[in-house]
């Protein structure tokens, strides 16, 4: 079975009396260790798709399987536990914790979610920081880093728990072109190093080129 299996999924948002069909009857599968991109214009359903795969939201209809678990039936607590153990997240606005240093931001999931021992945490954090090239910035706070550096820290935070799948919603939207390509290449090299599946959304053609598999969405449908 594929790492991610989406079966006939629809998502409809109700805003007052208006229904917005964010996804309509989407079926797809994503293999392990692949480097996949969802592309499409704004409002095409990219973020909704990532939210459903990332157990952040539930579909109106259809089934979502991630790592053989049917995640659309999970309750809040189960979804939180699943996200902490199987998934990693990279956000468009980096979403680093402002009060924590680079090292502490990367260490956060190991302390608050995984409850790893101090020695194991140190080993894992230093390894992943070295991999993303941020070891020499480990004592800096987020506001002392550039956008590209922040996103590298975010990549490290997403990878430190050794998740099977990393989801990145527009990870390069807040970066200049050079930094954007660098971050995507970093993600791909991480995929090569850790065999982690990466799924990201983008509407930047330069970033799209770096993906190995591209799924295009338009008005909530796969095209």
């Amino acid at each position, binding site marked *: 079975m594929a790492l991610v299996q989406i079966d006939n999924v629809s998502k409809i948002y109700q805003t007052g009396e208006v229904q917005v069909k964010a996804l309509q009857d989407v079926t797809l599968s994503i293999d392990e260790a692949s480097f996949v991109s969802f592309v499409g214009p704004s409002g095409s359903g990219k973020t909704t798709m990532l939210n459903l795969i990332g157990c952040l939201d539930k579909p109106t209809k259809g089934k979502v399987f991630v790592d053989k678990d049917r995640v659309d039936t999970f309750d809040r607590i189960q979804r939180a536990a699943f996200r902490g153990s199987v998934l990693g997240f990279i956000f468009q606005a980096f979403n680093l914790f*402002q009060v924590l240093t680079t090292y502490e931001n990367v260490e956060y*999931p190991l302390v608050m*979610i995984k409850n790893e021992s101090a020695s194991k945490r140190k080993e894992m954090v230093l390894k992943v920081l070295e991999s993303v090239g941020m070891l020499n910035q480990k004592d800096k706070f987020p506001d002392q880093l550039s956008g590209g550096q922040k996103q590298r820290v975010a990549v490290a935070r997403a990878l430190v728990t050794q998740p099977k799948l990393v989801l990145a919603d527009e990870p390069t939207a807040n970066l200049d072109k050079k930094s954007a390509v660098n971050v995507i290449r970093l993600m791909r090299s991480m995929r090569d190093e850790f065999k982690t599946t990466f799924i990201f959304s983008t509407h930047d053609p330069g970033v799209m080129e770096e993906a190995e598999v591209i799924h295009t969405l338009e008005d909530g449908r796969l095209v």
Partner: protein
Amino acid sequence: MIRIFKIALRNLMRYKRRTLLTSLLITLGLLMVILFSGLAGSFKEMMIGQITDSNLAQMQIHKKGYVSSIDTSPLNLTINQKGYKKIEKMLNENPDVEAYAPRIKLSAMLSNFTETTNIRLNAIDPDKEIKVCPDVSERMKFSGSQTPDILLRPGEIIIPEKLAAGLKIKIKDSVVLVANNKDGSVNGLNFTVAGIIESILGPQGKEGYMHIKDAQSLLRMEKPEIIEIALRIKKFDKLNDVYKDLKPALAKFENKKGKPAFEIHTWEKLSPFSNIAKMIDIMTVSMKIIMIAIVLISILNVMMMSVYERVREIGTMSAIGTAPGKIMSLFLAEGLSLGLISVLAGNIIGILGIYILNIYKIRYAFGRQDNLLLSPTISFSELAWVSAIVLLVSVFATLQPAYKASRMEPVDALGHV
């Protein structure tokens, strides 16, 4: 847990001015309570000490029914020799009783040979009385500058200062006391004024003193009788416990009708100051309630703002898999830390404030008493109790915002602008 508090403290330091102002508000509330408790508590203790140690004693035993007719100083409700012996035996067997003293309370006419007036007298056994009311002599002025070895000898009287001033009586003057005994016959005796006593609060605060043997002669008691037994216990904070021990023991002594022959009362039942003491306690509790309101509102306000400002951050925590309980504990730790910082600051400043008040010695007047010195103190248990209230209220005030944070859906929180 340490990491949670570390993050909580850093988040508090993120909004330095807000944290400082809130902490300052709570600190001031706590300081107010500590200073008020220290001042009011020491005022109360001082007044109680003065009443019980110089005049009333901590407890009194009377013949049943005496206290309800105390204003008329009835002479027919006396404790005879047999009754006194029984009570004496009971008191000697109680390890918490430090001392006791027999007294006769009477009203008489005092004359300086030209003018006559009423006087209420407390007839005492000086040796025993000084053990029950060790500060009684502090209210008295004698001919010399020092208190004599024997407070009062037979044939001597100590009269209240207002009365002495009114009749122009001086120490060593001769006076005559005329009194009715319980049968209504009149008797008179000459006395030498040995001292003048200043008044204190309460119905027994304006009494003169005479020797108990003189009172028995004046009242023509064929056999020794007394009106009351004043008690002092070893630890004043055990007053109610000792009272609860003595009351049933005393109730075993019955009169001919098979009813309790004696009654016992603590100072609270005998002095009107107990109502003032209760008012002080109510005011102290009111101050604590005000402090609780300050802590509750200020921490609730800060934590609600904190949650509102960090919705995206909460969404990130939740998205990457932080359990709702952990998110809640992060905010609870923040509220608790804010309370803890304020408690530390409040306690330090409060103790310092009490220390300064003691250096600058506050003097005050109460009723007819001037130049009373107030020495504010606060016990460790009181500090611990007030601090615990602040900490508990801090956590309580944080519960709602913390719960709200833990219940946020990550997909909504991440999209918050």
